[in-house]
């Protein structure tokens, strides 16, 4: 730094007092660097101890604080010490969100399918159709995804809640209404049903119609 060179050659004992304090702008730089590099907040006293003799870190701090006003980092007082901190409004930059998209589990997609084709449908009905019990987590997940919601209670003993699909569900799957979901006939035509009619159950055509009737019936029930 500049201060040493100008004074060299003076008497050693007077040297200290003859050292002029660095200009305040320079002191500001010093405070800035020390605060930046310190692992902990730094007190004015510590700053004074580290800066050249005669420095006024408190005054430098005032200037520095002004300089950082409105910046991405701010000079904040922590107890009686000072530190740089990220501006609070930028805290969101300090977290990085990674979004991972996973396929719905088979249980969830089946439950969702049943709800969409049979809505409004009670949990007991879902279980009956699936043939296995439906875990609370599966229902919760679908509710959380906002793909299903509670419908009206069924007017049967126990008044069970029903589930229906939401507008978000329709939006996601590009449907105008749940009735637009393809029936079994279309599913088969699209090759999605690779089953055959059970032996002795007549012509395939009639069975398919039956399936559609089933569905219509369910919807009418509402």
């Amino acid at each position, binding site marked *: 730094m500049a201060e040493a060179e100008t004074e060299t050659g003076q008497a050693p004992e007077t040297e200290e007092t003859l050292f002029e304090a660095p200009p305040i702008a320079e002191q500001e730089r010093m405070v800035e*660097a020390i605060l*930046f*590099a*310190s*692992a*902990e907040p730094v007190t004015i006293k510590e700053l004074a101890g580290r800066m050249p003799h005669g420095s006024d870190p408190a005054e430098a701090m005032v200037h520095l604080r002004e300089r950082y006003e409105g910046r991405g980092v701010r000079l904040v007082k922590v107890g009686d010490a000072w*530190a*740089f901190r*990220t501006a609070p409004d930028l805290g969101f930059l*300090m*977290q*990085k*969100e*990674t*979004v*991972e*998209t*996973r*396929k*719905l589990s*088979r249980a*969830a*997609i*089946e439950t*969702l*399918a*049943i709800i*969409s*084709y049979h809505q409004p449908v009670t949990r007991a009905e879902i279980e009956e*159709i*699936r*043939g296995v019990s439906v875990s609370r987590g599966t229902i919760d*997940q679908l509710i959380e*995804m906002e793909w299903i919601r509670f419908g009206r209670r069924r007017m049967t003993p126990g008044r069970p809640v029903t589930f229906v699909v939401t507008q978000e569900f329709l939006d*996601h*799957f*590009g*449907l105008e209404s749940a009735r637009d*979901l*393809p029936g*079994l006939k279309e*599913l088969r035509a*699209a090759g*999605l*049903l*690779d*089953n*055959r*009619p*059970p*032996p002795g159950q007549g012509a395939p055509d009639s069975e398919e119609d039956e*399936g559609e009737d089933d569905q219509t019936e369910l919807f009418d029930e509402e």
Partner: protein
Amino acid sequence: MNDAEFTEDTVTNVSDRLAAEALIVDVDGFEGPLDVLLTMSRTQKVDLRQISVLALAEQYLAFIEKARDLRIELAADYLVMAAWLAFLKSRLLLPPDPAEEGPSGEELAAHLAFQLERLQAMRDHAAKLMARDQLGRDFFARGITEDVTRTRRVTYTATLLDLMQAYARIRTKDEFRPYTMDRDAIFTMEEALSRLRPLIGFAGEWTDILSYLPEGWENDPARRRSATASTFAASLELAKEGRIELRQGDTFAPIQIRRKQDG
């Protein structure tokens, strides 16, 4: 000096020399032969490109002699270098033999000078590098760091196809079986044969083969078609065996069979 022998040594010992790291002795802070040569070349106080390789070789050989007198154990590469320098010296002193193959003494000396110059350059630049401002010594990184918190959000998705397939799966679950060719409307020839064989004994008269169709296969068109075909094929088989006779009165007329009269 035996020139030829030294040439051989030089070539074959390069890899040996490189592998002999553990044997390097620290003689007056020297790490190795090139190192020693470099120090000696400096005493000539000339540009490395103009050093006298001859003088250098002499100095090095004298150094080795002295070390031996002092009974300092020298690493192999010191001695290889000494031998090589002695060889080089002889090459530089003697007039070149036109019949001799290989690089001239001047070429070898030039290369040695290049090596020394390069090593010196690396030393100088290593010093320059280390003299630079260094992180954590002259300049500093942020003391209070804020770690980025990484949050992982999992979203689930499904396609309409997934949905429909799932529904189809549920609706057809009871009917599900491993995929096989749909054969329920197929009456095989084996089946027809085993049906016909026991019956044929009673067929004394010409009988329409359609009367042999199994029960329940007469009405459904697909089943009827299959049963007719297999029964006909089975009757051909039996005719071949000589068990029955076969006739058809006209195109598309009923096909009739009867037991072979003399069979």
